[in-house]
């Protein structure tokens, strides 16, 4: 098992290195200093800033130094846009991001699997057809439409109806106060639950169709017939035999959904004013805050690759055959 984990990590390290290389090169295609300082800046001012940022050193040296800083998680460069170091801008944005992404991923997987099970169990009946038609139609609407309507009805309309603000229209507050767990959950729900629900609704269309197909495929297989023949109850067949064997495609699916959830969380963060990594990335790009862009992108890539490794390990846990390949 451990050798498998080590292999996966070693396989992904060069990928990360190349991604950082590509991104650093991409961000240097246009001179970031000239873009930041604008057309009015004199050539000397630009040259001085390049000197200060170390942008006139050889590219590979910048690359090596950036990697060294990244390995130590030492982001002490100053942001161009805010009076803070890059670390002070980037690190606080991790928790808000995760407080949307993780619940969204977990909740959408659970809801979609349940709906997929319901549809598969009623295969060919009205409820199955209705659910699948809904899923197809739901896929044809833009993510942004869900967000706009979700904010309108979840935040504005609902508050008007109930007289109290259930969900915030926008904004975020640090909810990680472990001394008062109830309060923490309430704060989280106030700011983050609506975006999470929107994300779940959007991913549902894609996921339920897939889970239904997987479960239907498993349900018609021989081992299920054997289980029934030897007298297993329907529930036992469902959960003990079927769901366990469907685990591999389900994990694959969750892994496939991950980038989609990240896209969503970027949109949701920007729309709902949640200071997560997506919003930090977007703001740094729009404000031409080059040091922050570079750091956020590298950090996002690192987190994403780490989650890829985690899914690979999960595979191996679920299906021992994977370890051998």
């Amino acid at each position, binding site marked *: 098992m451990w050798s498998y984990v080590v292999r996966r990590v070693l396989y*992904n390290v060069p*990928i*990360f290195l*190349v*991604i950082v290389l*590509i*991104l650093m090169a*991409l*961000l240097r*295609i*246009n001179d970031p200093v000239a*873009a930041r300082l604008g057309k009015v800046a004199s050539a000397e001012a630009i040259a001085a800033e390049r000197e200060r940022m170390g942008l006139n050193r050889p590219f590979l040296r910048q690359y090596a130094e950036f990697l060294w800083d990244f390995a130590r998680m030492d982001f002490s460069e100053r942001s161009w846009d805010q009076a803070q170091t890059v670390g002070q801008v980037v690190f606080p944005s991790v928790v808000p991001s995760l407080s949307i992404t993780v619940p969204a991923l977990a909740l959408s997987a659970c809801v979609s699997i349940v709906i997929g099970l319901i549809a598969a169990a009623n295969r060919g009946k009205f409820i199955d057809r209705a659910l699948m038609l809904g899923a*197809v*139609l739901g*896929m*044809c*609407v*833009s*993510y*942004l*439409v869900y967000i*706009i*309507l979700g*904010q*309108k009805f979840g935040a*504005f309309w609902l508050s008007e109806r109930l007289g109290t603000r259930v969900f915030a229209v926008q904004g975020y507050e640090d909810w990680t106060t472990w001394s008062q767990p109830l309060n923490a959950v309430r704060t989280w729900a106030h700011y983050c639950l609506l975006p999470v629900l929107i994300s779940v609704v959007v991913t549902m269309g*894609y*996921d339920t*169709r*897939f889970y*239904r*197909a*997987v479960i239907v*495929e498993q349900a018609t297989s021989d081992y299920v017939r054997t289980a029934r023949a030897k007298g297993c109850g329907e529930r036992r067949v469902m959960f003990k035999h079927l769901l366990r064997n469907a685990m591999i*495609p389900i994990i694959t699916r969750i892994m*496939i959904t*991950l*980038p989609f959830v*990240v*896209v969503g969380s*970027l*949109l949701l963060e*920007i729309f709902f004013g949640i200071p997560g990594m*997506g919003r930090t*990335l*977007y703001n740094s*790009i*729009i404000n031409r805050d080059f040091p922050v*862009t570079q750091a956020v*992108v590298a950090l*996002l*890539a690192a987190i*994403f*690759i780490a989650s*890829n490794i985690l899914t690979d390990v999960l595979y191996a846990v679920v299906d021992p055959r994977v370890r051998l390949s």
Partner: protein
Amino acid sequence: MSDRPDQSKQPTDLLTARAGQRPSGFFEQPGVRKFVRNRPAVGALTVIAVFLLLALLISMPGVNLVPLERATERVGPDAVPGFFVRASDEKRAAFAAFWVRELDKSLRASDPEQAIAALAFAERRIAPLELGALRDRLAEAQAMLDGLDEAMGDAEDARFDLEDLAEELAGEDEPSDALREQERELREELAGMQRVVRERLVALEDAIESLYPTPRGREGFAYRVRLLAGTDGQGRSLLLRAVYSIKVAVQIGVVTALLSVFVGTLLGAAAGYIGGPVDHAVVWLYSTISSIPYIVWLVVVAFVVREINWTVPILDKQLNQTLFPVYAAFVMNFWVGPCRVIRGEALKIRGLDYVQAATAVGCGRCRVLLRHVLPNTTYLVFINFSLLFVGAIKGEVILSFLGLGVQGQPSWGIMIRDSQPEVVVGFFWQLGIATAFMFVLVLAFNIVSDALQDAFDPKHVAGEA
């Protein structure tokens, strides 16, 4: 199986015998026949054809179905509801105020004669009157507008009073008769005021109708078409904007899907068939690209390409005014999907008898790849094309929302983005019309790609792109 080529004829030699057993024409292949039997899929294909045709008619220089100027000119007041749904009294008053204000502005211009001559909203023009007469009419209309405002203010006050009174009544267990009487009177008073508001509104609208007569005949029809789906926050025709956006969507979809499928197919087939270091390189490349969320590539690439200071030669436009940044961002991400699928298929095909036979006969690698491997992945190419088309249309909305997408022309993404403040105040027409157009096209592509999958690859698990 009766429409198979007649096999009763005695074959003259072995070659023609084998050709006779193979389904010949395009429509006789089993997959194609299965697809054609699928009614929704054929309908969806027709819808796609209509959209493509519209896009062609819009972009062809000779036809120019909806010129860009038509999609960006003002045709009336802001936020007019679509399908001639009657707006609320407040909004109707605001529309009237708009017409009055425009006339006022023109009459105050340094050269009123010229300003009045130019005062037109698409087909709806100012009445051909003398300047003096127009001034008199304007003064009249302004007075009516003031009267209307006053009446509406009074009605508003009366409604507040009534609400206060109702609260007072609800608070008491045994309301006195005097209080009830007061409420009844107030109610009547309010009803009277509302009648006054209506009357004044109708009178004002008549006055405006005589100032700006609604065009008749052909022009009237054209104007009504413009207002069919209402107007946006700047008084532009929503229907024309949505129709014009078909061109933008098709353009983005076709270019990115074609390029990505081309690159992906070539690399995938080469990797799968040739194998060895080529395979390793391609797999490594796509796993690198898909190792970070595609939105990050999308945002970074779109941004970087937009910033490049370069004038595109033929179009004679700055790079950030064209769609190239959008194409670049999409193709960079999208080629991975087809590449992965087609590599897998090519790996499978490589081991099949007919490829072995072709190699044994002495066909070169290139010939086997182009003549034997690639043709057998055609259905995958089509499926991936339609999946990527949908991906591009949806991605355009996201990029446009982020301000990195389409520039200088309307698109569904821009319409959806612009609709956000309108939705908050309860005006859904812009969001609705853009979503409806996009919905139809995306649904059609989804149906077609599902049907292709059913017809050519029945064992495939639905939803797995």
